[in-house]
């Protein structure tokens, strides 16, 4: 075999290897996975891996993929750009004007990431190789269900008892938080009275004529009843039951049933 032949053969082998990688591109789980695979071909301990060489391998891979018109996912290209940057920082003497980590620091971190991913893969393999429940080790075949028995426990304290007793004992006079309102007419009371009466008020009628007789004499009661009745009339007007009018200030307030 002549030299040219040997060279050609080597070339073919190299191309085949590259193509094998590329054909496999779908099988890689992202750029880091690819880098790890490439790193393993260096056949050294991952801790002694040459990141520079790795970056070159990766970039070559991307170039070849492009040449073969294989579409690479964006993150492969982002990684390629980053590795090209890393490569330049590793090759060029450090630029004192430039901030940020050195090429070595970046390379060391990438090496760490690769080593960590590799370690997790090995851990995963060891984990899956363990004796596993349902495959190597078995649980009880006939578990007996635990029957739930419900007990209801009633609870009452002495305070509950005393409160209950206090409630009964003082039922007649016990009206908590209610003020004494013997001489006050509430809005509810006034509404209650007025509602059935206005049904008959076909013509304008003085509101005061509705005042209950027994509330009309005592001034305090009269005042309360007037106010309550007026408020009630406003409520009824709001509800659309009646109309209200007043000719002038202080003139009698008149109401009338509203039809329809």
């Amino acid at each position, binding site marked *: 075999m002549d030299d040219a032949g040997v060279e050609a053969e080597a070339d073919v082998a190299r191309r085949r290897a590259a193509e094998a990688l590329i054909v496999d591109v779908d099988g890689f789980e992202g750029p880091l996975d690819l880098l790890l695979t490439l790193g393993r071909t260096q056949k050294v301990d991952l801790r002694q891996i040459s990141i520079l060489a790795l970056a070159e391998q990766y970039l070559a891979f991307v170039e070849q993929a492009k040449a073969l018109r294989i579409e690479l996912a964006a993150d492969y290209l982002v990684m390629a750009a980053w590795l090209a940057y890393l490569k330049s920082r590793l090759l060029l003497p450090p630029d004192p004007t430039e901030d940020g980590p050195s090429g070595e620091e970046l390379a060391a971190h990438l090496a760490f990431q690769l080593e960590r991913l590799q370690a997790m893969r090995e851990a995963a393999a060891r984990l899956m190789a363990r004796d596993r429940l349902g495959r190597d080790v078995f649980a*009880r075949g006939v578990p007996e269900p635990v029957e739930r*028995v419900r007990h209801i426990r009633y*609870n009452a304290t002495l305070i509950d*008892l005393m409160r*209950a*007793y206090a409630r009964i004992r003082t039922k007649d006079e016990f009206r*908590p938080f209610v003020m004494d309102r013997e001489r006050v007419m509430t809005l509810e009371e006034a509404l209650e009275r007025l509602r059935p009466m206005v049904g008959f008020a076909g013509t304008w009628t003085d509101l005061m004529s509705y005042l209950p007789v027994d509330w009309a004499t005592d001034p305090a009661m009269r005042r309360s009843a007037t106010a309550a009745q007026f408020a009630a009339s406003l409520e009824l007007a709001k509800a659309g039951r009646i109309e209200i009018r007043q000719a002038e200030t202080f003139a009698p307030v008149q109401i009338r049933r509203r039809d329809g």
Partner: protein
Amino acid sequence: MAEPGDDDAPGLFEAPPLSEQERMVEAILFASADPVSVADLNARMPHGCDAAQALELLARRYEGRGVALRRVGAAWAFRTASDLGFLMQRDVTETRKLSRAAIETLAIVAYHQPVTRAEIEEIRGVSVSRGTVDQLLELEWIGFGRRRNTPGRPVTYVVPQGFLDHFGLSSAKDLPGLKDLRAAGLLENRPPPDAGDDDDEAQDDMFGGEDDGEDGR
């Protein structure tokens, strides 16, 4: 069966020792969803095993344990020891408050014992349902006293030891009086019109009145 090399070749494959066979039977019966017959056991165990013999050993080993080896028809299974069935129940205790009717009825019995149902109803102002009384009886927070010597001889209710125990009282006389209730802020409304009177007396007048100590308790 008829395959070559499948024939009994004594000595070629030693059967595992009996103690191993016992472990195997134990594991199979433990994991199996259904009872397993001796034939099935033999089929699943290595060649030359004697499941029946292993079962015997195993049954003896589990004698008096928390689980027992049981024969189910022609097959075998582990079952919970029959005296431990109670462990397969889980008691769920729910605490509930007594209904308002129940606690009021209970309070009336406690303060007015012995008291008839009619009296309870009179004091509460509403009728007392049978369910309420039954519930309190069941809780042993009220009990039956003597029958009243009035027409119809109605039963009376009293508070028994169970009530005192639950409420931490040494006797029904230790129940706080109305004065105490007021002091404790449980009666925070204005004093009744005849304030100043001895409340405890008023209480007696009001409720103890008619049947006044008649049973001579």
